[in-house]
């Protein structure tokens, strides 16, 4: 009888709290959005499942959760903590960038280099939010990690947090991926607000064809320039461009294939799951609750949304500004794609423009600021790393 009581004590039922139940419901909602609404399912589904797993309570002392490491006093590093190490050490994001590089075609950017500026303008959101986070009392390191959410790039956000503010990694990662998934809901209202009907109907002429040589030179040029300007961006940009070179060289197809499939998928599953599992609702360290369900997380979510909005806003505004000087006007909508969130925000632009002129295909044009946005936010992350480390 005594034994049965002891076993019941070890079950999760005995330790279940309301906050855990709330988080489990949140996890289920993420899975629902992934499957039914098809919002970034490759990320939201494992994250949602991770949230459920991470919020099942267990007796203190069992090495199960992502925070149960020998360093934290557990008798053994738990399996989930070993997976989570791939996140906190910062190694998963660059490997994911390697795979993304092996899948991305930068032709659009090469054929219209001026679109790069739109990718730069959207990063204004990062720095404005950094200021906002400082105002709310976050430290420099924390503020930078929160601001980067506006870069709309999950791996970049996670990488920066892992380097500057590992204790905020959970909410920042969740916020970044959530807003990326919600791009089709967040961006259109801002696009409507910022553009006139006439602007939305601007057609752009087809880009020139890009030669194989340019595609091969591109990753080499980008890595040298970006890393000289912001060496802190080297892990991300270096891997992104290595992957792209493997793809474009034409002589390393099998490496590009593995980088863009098995390696990318493995890192995606493990990173997303571990990030999800790191969102324990309540977690005490030295008597202080540093869990996920705290006002701090709410602040981060609010600032993240702000960051996203300002980034979209900045891209649109700068596109209109560029049109003052350009002979061949660009459609300002493609400025919204500067946030990155590849390729979702480019698709949103395409979809939005076709509502007003169904033969106006902006997808290819929007891809240029879109991929420039990836490079831009990696550089922004590099700047923060250089200053705050």
């Amino acid at each position, binding site marked *: 009888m005594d034994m049965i009581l002891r076993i019941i004590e070890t079950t999760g039922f005995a330790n279940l709290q309301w906050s855990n139940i709330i988080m489990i419901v949140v996890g289920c909602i993420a899975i629902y959005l992934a499957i039914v609404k098809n919002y970034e399912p490759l990320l939201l589904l494992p994250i949602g499942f991770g949230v459920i797993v991470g919020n099942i309570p267990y007796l203190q002392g069992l090495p199960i959760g992502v925070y149960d490491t020998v360093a934290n006093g557990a008798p053994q590093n738990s399996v989930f903590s070993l997976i989570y190490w791939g996140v906190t050490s910062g190694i998963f994001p660059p490997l994911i960038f390697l795979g993304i590089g092996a899948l991305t*075609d930068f032709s659009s950017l090469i054929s219209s280099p001026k679109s790069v500026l739109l990718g730069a303008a959207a990063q204004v959101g990062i720095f404005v939010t950094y200021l906002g986070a400082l105002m709310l009392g976050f430290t420099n390191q924390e503020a930078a990690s929160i601001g980067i959410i506006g870069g709309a790039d999950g791996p970049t956000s996670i990488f920066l947090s892992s380097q500057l503010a590992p204790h905020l990694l959970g909410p920042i990662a969740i916020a970044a991926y959530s807003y990326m998934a919600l791009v089709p809901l967040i961006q259109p209202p801002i696009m409507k607000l910022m553009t006139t009907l006439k602007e939305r109907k601007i057609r752009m002429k087809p880009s020139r064809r890009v030669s194989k040589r340019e595609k091969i030179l591109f990753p080499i040029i980008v890595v040298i320039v970006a890393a000289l300007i912001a060496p802190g961006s080297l892990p991300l940009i270096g891997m992104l461009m290595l992957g792209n070179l493997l793809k474009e060289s034409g002589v390393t197809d099998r490496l590009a294939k593995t980088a863009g499939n098995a390696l990318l998928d493995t890192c995606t599953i493990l990173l997303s799951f571990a990030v999800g599992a790191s969102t324990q609702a309540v977690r005490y360290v030295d008597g202080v609750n540093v869990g996920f369900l705290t006002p701090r997380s709410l602040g981060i979510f609010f600032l993240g949304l702000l960051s996203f909005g300002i980034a979209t806003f900045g891209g649109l505004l700068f596109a209109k500004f560029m049109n003052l000087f350009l002979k061949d006007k660009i459609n300002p909508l493609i400025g919204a794609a500067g946030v990155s969130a590849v390729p979702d925000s480019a698709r949103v632009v395409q979809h939005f423009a076709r509502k007003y002129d169904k033969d106006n295909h902006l997808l290819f044009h929007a891809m240029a600021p879109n991929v420039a946005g990836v490079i831009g936010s990696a550089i922004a992350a590099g700047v923060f790393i250089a200053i705050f480390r």
Partner: protein
Amino acid sequence: MFENIIQNNGFNIALSGILVVFSGLTLIATTIHLFNKVFERLHRGATAESDTVLPKKAAAIPEDVLAAITVAIEIYRKIHFETLQSQITFIHGEQQSAWKSGYKYGQRLSTLRKQ
């Protein structure tokens, strides 16, 4: 209200950050642009020849045969290599991805059109 910002030198950092991002990306854009210019100039002579050779070769093959060949090559590629599951798909007049058979086919056609 701005205390924490000023204390942390926030405005300076934000401004210089934006500056670095802009100058970095501008430098990349400029370098690419320059390279493009250089190669265009270098190639003007080289492409002159091919312009006279390639079209004839291409013209000799009827378009429907070309299409058939393309399909055959595409199936061959799909069977013999695994395709990269591309996350990014471009809808564009003439497809540019080397992973699609439209590439070579499109190039030939475009040469025809430009005549």
